[in-house]
């Protein structure tokens, strides 16, 4: 690595720039198009600027009940987020010591991550269908279905978010200095105190990251939900349904809104992470400050 930027740097930088443009360009196009005037169509050019299509989304005219789907997705996302954080952190802690079935659980998590979504989804659908059949046969007359947003839907989302959470925890603890805990223990801290006052503050920024993954992955999840969600739809499912039927920019408006929520969450999480890291730097080390 010489001091001067080589020619390949500029070539690669240009390539990177093109990649970023490729990533963001189309998205930006639909954000702009969602402000299409009332007579505008699905493509450029813009016919004036308006908020008509956003109004359409909120009033619910023309398309399905978006408000309800929005709320459902939000609730599910939050539940998935909390569960992902709690389970990933505890599993992450457990994996630091070897326990029976550790390797097996690890491979299951990886398998769950890379399993084609449709298969998982189909499996969960079958599982609940058979469960329903069984319950009906054993005499429950009014039973309809156990399938729903917070049973099969939640499970489907967790098979997707938990592996990510677990992998992030692995990454954290591979760089974690175990001597810090020993020090705490030597000073007489209980296991809970050690976790609460030593381990948690150090890993907190990454835990926020896990939460971010948990929420956004659930918020946008589509393939796994498709068969396993029961009778009601989440927002991405509604969106997918709309792609084939809608010919007006209201679908872009909806897309802009959905992405807006994603960006809000990402932004909030990043701010929290940065704040936490800044705090760590301030309080982290008193090396070189002499005895207090």
């Amino acid at each position, binding site marked *: *690595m010489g001091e001067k930027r080589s020619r*390949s*740097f500029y070539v*690669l930088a240009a390539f*990177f720039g093109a*990649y970023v443009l*490729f*990533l*963001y360009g*189309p*998205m930006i*196009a*639909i954000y702009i*198009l969602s402000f299409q005037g009332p007579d505008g169509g699905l*493509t*450029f050019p813009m016919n004036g600027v308006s908020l008509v299509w956003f109004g359409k989304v909120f009033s619910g005219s023309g398309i399905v009940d978006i408000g309800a789907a929005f709320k459902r997705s939000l609730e599910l996302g939050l539940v998935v987020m909390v569960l992902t954080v709690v*389970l990933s952190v505890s599993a992450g802690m457990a994996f630091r010591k070897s326990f029976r*079935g550790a390797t097996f*659980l*690890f491979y*299951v*998590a*990886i398998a769950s991550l*890379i*399993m*084609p979504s*449709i*298969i*998982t989804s*189909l*499996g969960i*659908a*079958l*599982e609940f*269908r058979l469960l329903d059949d069984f319950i009906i046969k054993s005499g429950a007359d009014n039973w309809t279905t156990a399938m729903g947003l917070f049973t099969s839907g939640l*499970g489907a989302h*967790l*098979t997707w978010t*938990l592996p990510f959470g*677990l992998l992030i925890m692995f*990454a954290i603890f*591979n760089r974690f200095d175990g001597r810090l805990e020993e020090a705490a223990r030597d000073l007489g801290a209980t296991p809970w105190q050690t976790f609460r006052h030593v381990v948690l503050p150090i890993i907190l920024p990454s835990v926020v990251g896990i939460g971010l*993954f948990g929420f*956004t992955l659930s*918020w*946008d999840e*589509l*393939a796994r939900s498709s068969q396993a969600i029961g009778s009601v739809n989440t927002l*991405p499912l509604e*969106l*997918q349904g709309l*792609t*084939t039927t809608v010919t007006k920019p209201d*679908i872009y408006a909806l*897309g802009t809104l*959905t*992405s807006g929520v*994603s960006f809000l969450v*990402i932004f909030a999480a*990043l701010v929290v992470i940065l704040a936490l890291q800044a705090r760590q730097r301030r309080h982290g080390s008193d090396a070189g400050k002499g005895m207090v």
Partner: protein
Amino acid sequence: MMLIFTLFFLLPLLFVTIVSAWDYNEYEMIPAFSLRGYTDTFEGCIAGLPDLCTILKTYLKTLKLCLLTWSLTLLIGFTVAYFLAFHVRSKTWQIVLTLLCTIPFWTSNVIRMIAWIPLLGRNGLVNKGLEGIGLIQQPVEWLLFSEFSVVLALVHLFTFFMVVPIFNSMIRIDKRLIEAAYDAGATGWQTLVNIIIPLAKPGIVIGSIFVITIVMGDFVTVGVMGGEQIASAGKIIETRLSALQFPAAAANAVILLGITILIISSLTRIVDIRKEL
């Protein structure tokens, strides 16, 4: 955690396997052993030889899409990761640029697919632009709702899965090795081929596993970007499901699963995933 994976992952897989060997009629599944799910899938395959039957054609097409997407994501992902790992010098910039690549991953896939429509459609920007500079007289039809748009969208969506593991491998390469190579008189290209690529191999393999499994099972992208006209392995399952032919869907799932496991196990022979974290 184990409980959740058992309930929502292992048991479902088991049920898929069991149900794939059940009988079925027009509206329900019958818990009796039958290979109808499989035989129906391959219906007419032997009679129709030497012409390929629909199912084989579909799988071949899925493999083709998969291969195309894989090579493109690998090429783009490797270049992007290489740039991030070796040419961006300050840590802050590395984080900022990595985040820049990650943020779209946290937003909705469907929206990122829809986003191509105003660009590629018949009256989209690309067609208008090409007409504007006089390259074409008629709008190009194959831009949207075609294999082209499917691969484009897949590359767009999933290059991220290549960038991250490859970047992760590259960042751990000892910079002194590269200097040593440079001092020993290796050209940039020789360093790339003989040092960086072998050392980044674990990342490449992990990224490949992600991309291949996602594309093999994908039905959403193929559905939306293919205008519901292109068949793929995942799409077959979905179609069977909407016809409520659960055993047939399950049989297809088992076949897909088999192919996927085959690909993964041959790839994992090359690296041990757990060591790479």
